[in-house]
């Protein structure tokens, strides 16, 4: 997976329903006590809306994130790498299932969510709008994109919504293998023949900008983070997660002789904050709004798959069955 802060925040509607003040106070007191919110609890309309948006986009990211890696299964170097990649891709699709289920408990159907993905109405992690050109790209994704995702998911698993936390706990367990197999492949290339090392360096150079985009725009330009953090929908700011990611992974990149293509990247020991060049937030906005190298291909693949699986799904539909909101 891949979820969280990188995702665009929806503009708040002017006509946001006024929530019952007493219920709101009880709801917030429950969150302050560290208790979880469960599906049929009363919740502010905006809490529900923001959670659906966040969990749904996290789910879409798992589905779309499997595409650049899935492409490489047939070409992964060696049988063991192929097996590991198949297992990882299957895990990611499993993550999507878990997350769609969690979002469904809030009242949006899986069909509706997938339709919003297909029309481009709802977003997914921006990094998957970039191509995986070589095996080294898959290695960078498996190590560093999954690492970024883990920072985000571990934080969110301490959030306030029960079903999302339960899904994330399970996801985090599986992610530990994703990270380790990615790190292993990364080290193999970095310490291998010159051609391998150069291929990895080239891939990291291309991926560094999307990696810096991964946790989302800087706090000073993202909206209503404060309320989402009060409600424990968001557990850390975009900047904090990015900083934590850099703390943990920059040393792991440098220690095996790979360089980072940003001369201004350094940790300010006084503040504990990493400093870096502007990673081009205009490009981020452009790509997330549809104008990236792979946006069209990603959605076209999903369209193709949905179109060609439709006859099976509809043949098995039972019109007498009663659909209810699940308990997941």
């Amino acid at each position, binding site marked *: 997976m891949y979820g969280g802060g990188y995702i665009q925040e929806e503009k708040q509607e002017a006509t946001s329903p006024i929530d019952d003040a007493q219920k709101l106070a009880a709801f917030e007191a429950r969150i302050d006590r560290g208790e979880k919110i*469960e599906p049929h609890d009363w919740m502010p309309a905006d809490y529900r809306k923001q959670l659906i948006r966040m969990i749904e986009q996290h789910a879409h990211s798992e589905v779309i994130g499997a595409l650049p890696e899935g492409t490489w299964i047939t070409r992964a170097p060696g049988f063991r790498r192929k097996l590991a990649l198949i297992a990882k891709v299957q895990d990611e699709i499993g993550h999507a299932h878990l997350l769609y289920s969690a979002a469904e408990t809030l009242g949006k159907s899986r069909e509706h969510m997938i339709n919003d993905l297909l029309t481009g109405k709802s977003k997914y992690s921006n990094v998957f709008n970039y191509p995986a050109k070589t095996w080294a790209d898959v290695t960078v994704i498996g190590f560093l994109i999954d690492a970024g995702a883990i920072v985000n998911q571990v934080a969110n698993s301490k959030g306030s919504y029960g079903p999302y936390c*339960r899904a994330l706990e399970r996801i985090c367990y599986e992610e530990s293998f994703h990270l380790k197999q990615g790190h292993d492949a990364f080290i193999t290339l970095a310490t291998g023949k010159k051609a391998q090392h150069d291929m990895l360096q080239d891939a990291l150079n291309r991926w560094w900008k999307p990696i810096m985009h991964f946790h989302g725009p800087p706090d000073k330009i993202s909206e209503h983070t404060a309320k989402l953090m009060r409600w424990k929908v968001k557990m850390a700011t975009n900047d904090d997660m990015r900083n934590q990611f850099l703390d943990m992974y920059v040393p792991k990149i440098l220690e095996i002789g790979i360089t980072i293509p940003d001369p201004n990247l350094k940790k300010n020991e006084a503040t504990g904050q990493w400093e870096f060049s502007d990673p081009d937030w205009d490009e981020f906005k452009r790509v997330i709004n549809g104008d990236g190298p792979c946006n*069209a291909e990603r959605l076209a693949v999903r369209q193709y798959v949905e179109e060609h699986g439709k006859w099976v799904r509809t043949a098995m539909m039972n019109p007498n069955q009663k659909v209810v909101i699940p*308990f997941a």
Partner: protein
Amino acid sequence: MSKIPLNTPVLDPRIKRVDLESTYGTTSIGENEHWISWEVFHQKKRGDQHVHVGIVHAPDAQLALLFAKEQFGRRLACVNLWVTKSSDIFSFSYDDEDIFDNATAPEKQYREASGFRVMEKINRYKKSKQKA
């Protein structure tokens, strides 16, 4: 949505063989096309309880079990799974959560082992014996 041309050469060797552009922007999933949901209960080892772990979508119980195996019996130890339709689950409302408060209420100490102070009584008895 109008047809959007793919703006990079497609890299996926499988996808190169299909005409992606012809389906682009035309598909949507019908209502209930993903069927109903089933609650899944997972038994880690013989002797353990079956524990609720999540849901799957499936048109019938056989497929629900198959999907549950893929989703919940793939990575963790498992000897058995149950599925049941979400619509067949009945539950209390969290609004009535306080009806369970007295399960752990302090005034119910008379039914806890810790509610009985036998050592105090024994020690008092022993002490009185020593004095005598």
